[in-house]
């Protein structure tokens, strides 16, 4: 328990440094929040205009799509806020430049240090925009106490899911930087894909995002539950509650891989 408190205290101080650093550049910070928020809202506005012309997509109305869209957006923003240090693009650079070594020379947990080395407060823009879009969907949901309770769990699961992808991508950069783009497909491509109902995609894509990268459990199945919609693919209703399992499972795999990566890094250098 003591070491957990110590770890939290260290994390708090590390991100304190990051937040103060970010706020030191006041104009960039404000611009950053505005830019992100506006960008994403603009994207949703595009979607809204299109959906109104086509009267929905795959049988889903705008509000229903907004649930998917807002959920993914807010959760991804939250993930990016916390895990941005593990963005494979920047982490790969850090390893190549030797700034990662710095962390190995300090007498504290390396993973915690990496986590605390970036905390992009400006991601609040995206989180806010995601919540706003969820608000568009909210009236469509017949809220029950269980649903209200479950919602934050879904968000956290998505955060863990994308965080795990980031961590896996960063670990790969210990070996090669060339895979970063592939991970970007899963993260940025993944968020876009998850913003629409899964049944519009071909079987191959669906299978991939069920068995290999369990994205379908994170957003789609829970959405069916929240919106009281049946699955056109006929899956049982308990699928909606597998999100936390999938999220934790992926994070566990990612961290195990990460620890292996650090051990490998120490034996081969860069």
């Amino acid at each position, binding site marked *: 328990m003591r070491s957990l408190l110590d770890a939290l205290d260290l994390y708090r101080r590390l991100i304190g*440094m990051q937040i*103060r650093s970010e706020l030191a550049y006041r104009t960039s910070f404000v611009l950053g929040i505005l830019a992100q928020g506006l960008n994403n809202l603009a994207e949703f506005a595009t979607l809204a205009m299109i959906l109104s012309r086509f009267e929905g997509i795959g049988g889903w109305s705008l509000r229903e799509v907004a649930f998917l869209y807002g959920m993914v957006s807010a959760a991804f923003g939250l993930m990016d806020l916390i895990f941005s240090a593990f963005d494979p693009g920047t982490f790969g650079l850090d390893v190549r430049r*030797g700034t990662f070594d710095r962390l*190995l*020379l300090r007498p*504290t947990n390396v993973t915690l240090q990496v986590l605390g080395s970036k905390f992009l407060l400006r991601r609040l823009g995206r989180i806010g925009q995601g919540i706003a879009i969820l608000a568009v969907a909210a009236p469509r949901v017949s809220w029950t106490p269980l649903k209200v309770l479950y919602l934050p769990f879904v968000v956290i699961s998505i955060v863990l899911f994308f965080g795990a992808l980031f961590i896996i991508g960063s670990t790969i950069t210990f070996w090669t930087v060339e895979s970063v783009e592939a991970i970007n497909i899963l993260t940025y491509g993944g968020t876009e894909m998850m913003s629409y109902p899964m049944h519009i995609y071909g079987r191959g894509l669906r299978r991939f995002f069920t068995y290999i990268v369990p994205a379908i459990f994170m957003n789609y199945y829970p959405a069916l539950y929240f919106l009281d919609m049946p699955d056109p693919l006929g899956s049982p209703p308990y699928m909606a509650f597998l999100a936390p399992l999938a999220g934790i499972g992926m994070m566990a795999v990612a961290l195990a891989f990460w620890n292996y990566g650090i051990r490998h890094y120490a*034996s081969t*250098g860069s």
Partner: protein
Amino acid sequence: MTTHDAIITVADLHKHFKVYKHHRGPGSALRNLFTRAHHWVRAVDGITFEIQRGELVGYIGPNGAGKSTTIKMLTGLLVPTGGELHVAGRVPWRERKAHVAQIGAVFGQRTTLWWDLPTIESLELLRYIYKVPQARFRRNLDDFRALLELDPFLDTPVRSLSLGQRMRADLCAALLHDPPLLFLDEPTIGLDVVAKERIRQFIQHINADRGTTVILTTHDLSDVERLCRRVMIIDHGHLLFDGRLEALRERFGGQRELVVDMAEAPREVAVEGAEVVAREGLRVTYRFHGGEVSAAELIGRLSRRYPIRDLQVREPEIADTVRRIYEERLLEQ
């Protein structure tokens, strides 16, 4: 033979890297996909040495010699392929956290501090990370503030510091937790003469005053001349030399010069045991090998033969000596 005061013990240390070769030429992209030739690079190929507490050692070598690989193993960043390595009684990479709490490190090329915040904030966070008691922190900080003249920029963001200021801040940061062992990698690189001297004085002070053992890696040999009594030279993964600076000069200094001002210009100026390298009016420069003929002997021979008015013996520069060692691999006999 290990003495009680040895803070670093290295025995037959090896580090080998697997380097992959990419195929080139026609069809190479496809071939690279299936096979990759590799060969082994022996970055550190069996070195043995011991460093006692309180020593100030220079660890030098050309680029690619195995210097940074050794340092990485000593600091715990790299796991050796073979041999034994103990620092302050520990195996560095096995007990990483305990080990790094006992060392300080300054890298000339990059900083350990947080870029966008005032220097003092970095120092305070490091105090927390290294678990330095407040009283000791205050004492050390006051000490270093005076020695390194930190006050003018303690509140300045690190990104706004000049190179010299940043170096001094990094030195302070590295020593706040009173490590018995300090690694310095290019601490004076890019600095002007005055700043260099300030850093050197500081290094000398903490070594003499606090007994901090210092390992100095540098390409600036005047750093070594100024600070180190002991020098280790590494090249191609082997330790070419490990001993006192004077010994280095004596054994390999080899070429010394004798500049003689003649009283009058003789027809010829040849002398046994030395070669004439320059002649300008009445001034003749001889070059001789310290190992073959002593200066005294040469002076004797010259004065018996020629009318000498004045003379001067020139010692070789350590830079030249070391260069000769690299180039001629004198020790590989």
